[in-house]
């Protein structure tokens, strides 16, 4: 059975997001026979540029041009998509801040199943899709079954489907703005407030000593500062440390924090959620210390130590000082 699959394309300043490449790989994995259509919403010249780029990847591109989409707003585009996506189709959306805003409600409006944050597809049998998800920060995985009979909205984890060397698709752009209609926005975009730049710029540091939940208490951060000083690096951290206000946002590594590119990354008491790993680029040499031997961070690291950082770090610091 060949499905009709739509891929929602994100773009910024006229440039399509990497997820445009990933979603077509995901669509082909889901159903190699499927007709795959890109849907791109926006306004004006930047939208036209994004559609051209999408057409190099997808055989067909549906364009929704509307001034209300100059800044993309899930509350505005959701009813438009619900009008143009046919019943029974599958819609793929990247599982990031915009996708999470759009997708659950879209599934309701389309009366379709909702399958969130998928990392793998294992085929369709008898109208049911078998997919792979992760739970508990990647500590366990599950196979899930999704009934496709009424269509589905599926969000796809960024990075889970690696783009392949593609042939140019030479796709056709179809203007769907009229059919998509208008929307009365009950949520109105005001502005984007840029991240505060702290007194340190961790993106410039070659050595990052990064700390996570394993530090347990704010007072224990002293141990991390001492180690960072001993190795000549900067202190960075994972999200829970910033949520607890123990370190400033400018030191947070991850998709909702800073993207860093150090030479050496020490991950101390960090489990290694995909949001955290998404903030580390350029494959630094990574050392992970964690008391849980099954922590996902050990899959990404080059060298691992199973230990309690509260005991391990002071001894390491001492040794580094001695060895100088």
């Amino acid at each position, binding site marked *: 059975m060949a499905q009709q699959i739509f891929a929602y394309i994100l773009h910024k300043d006229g440039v399509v997001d990497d997820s445009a490449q990933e979603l077509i790989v995901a669509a082909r994995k889901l159903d190699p026979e499927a007709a795959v259509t890109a849907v791109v919403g926006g306004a004006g010249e930047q939208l036209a540029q994004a559609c051209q780029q999408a057409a190099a990847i997808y055989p067909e591109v549906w364009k929704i041009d509307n001034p209300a989409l100059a800044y993309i*707003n899930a*509350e505005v585009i959701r009813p438009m998509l619900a009008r143009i996506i046919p019943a029974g189709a599958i819609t793929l959306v990247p599982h*990031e*801040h*915009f996708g*999470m*805003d759009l997708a*659950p*409600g*879209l*599934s*309701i409006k389309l009366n379709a199943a*909702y399958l*969130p944050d998928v990392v793998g597809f294992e085929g369709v049998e008898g109208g049911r899709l*078998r997919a792979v*998800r*992760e*739970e*508990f*920060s990647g*500590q*366990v*995985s*599950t196979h*899930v*079954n*999704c*009934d496709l009979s*009424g269509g589905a909205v599926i969000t796809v984890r960024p990075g889970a489907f690696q783009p392949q060397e593609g042939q140019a698709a030479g796709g056709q752009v179809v203007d769907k703005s009229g059919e998509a209609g208008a929307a009365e926005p*009950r*949520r109105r975009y*005001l502005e*984007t*407030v*840029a*991240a*505060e730049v702290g007194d340190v710029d961790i993106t410039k540091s070659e*050595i990052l000593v990064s700390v996570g939940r394993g530090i347990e208490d704010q007072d224990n951060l002293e141990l991390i500062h001492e180690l960072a000083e001993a*190795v000549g*690096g900067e202190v960075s951290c994972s*999200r829970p440390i910033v949520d607890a*206000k123990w370190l400033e946002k400018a030191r*947070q590594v991850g998709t*909702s*924090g800073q993207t860093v590119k150090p030479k*050496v990354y020490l991950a101390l008491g960090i489990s290694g959620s995909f949001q955290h790993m998404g903030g580390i680029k350029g494959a630094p*040499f990574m*050392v992970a210390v964690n008391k*849980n031997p099954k922590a996902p961070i*050990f*899959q990404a690291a*080059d*060298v*691992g*130590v*199973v*230990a309690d950082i509260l005991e*391990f770090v002071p*001894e390491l610091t001492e040794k*580094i000082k001695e060895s100088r």
Partner: protein
Amino acid sequence: MEILVCVKRVPDTAENEIAVNKAGTDIDRDDLVYSVNEWDNYAVEEAIQIRDKVGGTVTVVSVGDDEAEEVVRREMAMGADNGLLLCDDAFTGSDGKGLATILKAAVEKGNFDLILTGAQADDGAGQVGGMLAAMLDWPYASLVNLVEIIDDKKIKVGREIAGGNQEMNEMDLPCVLSIQTGINEPRYVGIRGIRKVASVEIPVKGAADLGLAADAAGKAGAKVDRLDYFVPELGEGAEMLEGSTEEIIEKLVEILKAKGGIK
């Protein structure tokens, strides 16, 4: 402002190592420590702060079995005014849409201006808030890390987007928000608070009380279901350093020096 906060009882991942049971049908639930979902705790704190500023009430609701009562009671000890437990055998095996259907029925029995959920739970789906909003035909915002009440018709909402940036929106009430961690500092719940609400009766409602058909939620209505749990086949992963702590540290210092990890 009448505020409803949806909360869930989950295994506390800070306290537990999560493993798959022998049959691969579930995670190993023996000896697991449970608590309120971390994101939900921030949502309850936010609701309490809003109520304290502009007046009104905070109601905490959970879909679950009898044991879910403990998290509702805990959030009441935090300062929520009312608790509500939605509990019925017919709810077992609900998918996200099923949960949103149950919650919608409860919302329609009340007169709420604002509904808060956690941005996600440990299954990482982040789905119930957005589905509930769409079912109610109320506006929705996800990953909210700032809420300001403008008046009884409008609020200002900040959403977390990539790179630590924040997207500001004005929203009409009533609406649904999913709350991101870090929006506030959830207050400590002391033994006095727990004692204060220990004997409060928490109403329990089932499918019939909510006017739900038996197949509106639960396994029968689910379009998505889990087949099994497994530990993913992992790649090669890290070279694990072994030996005494002294030996490990010696080796690690050597490696760090060679890789430029010590300036």
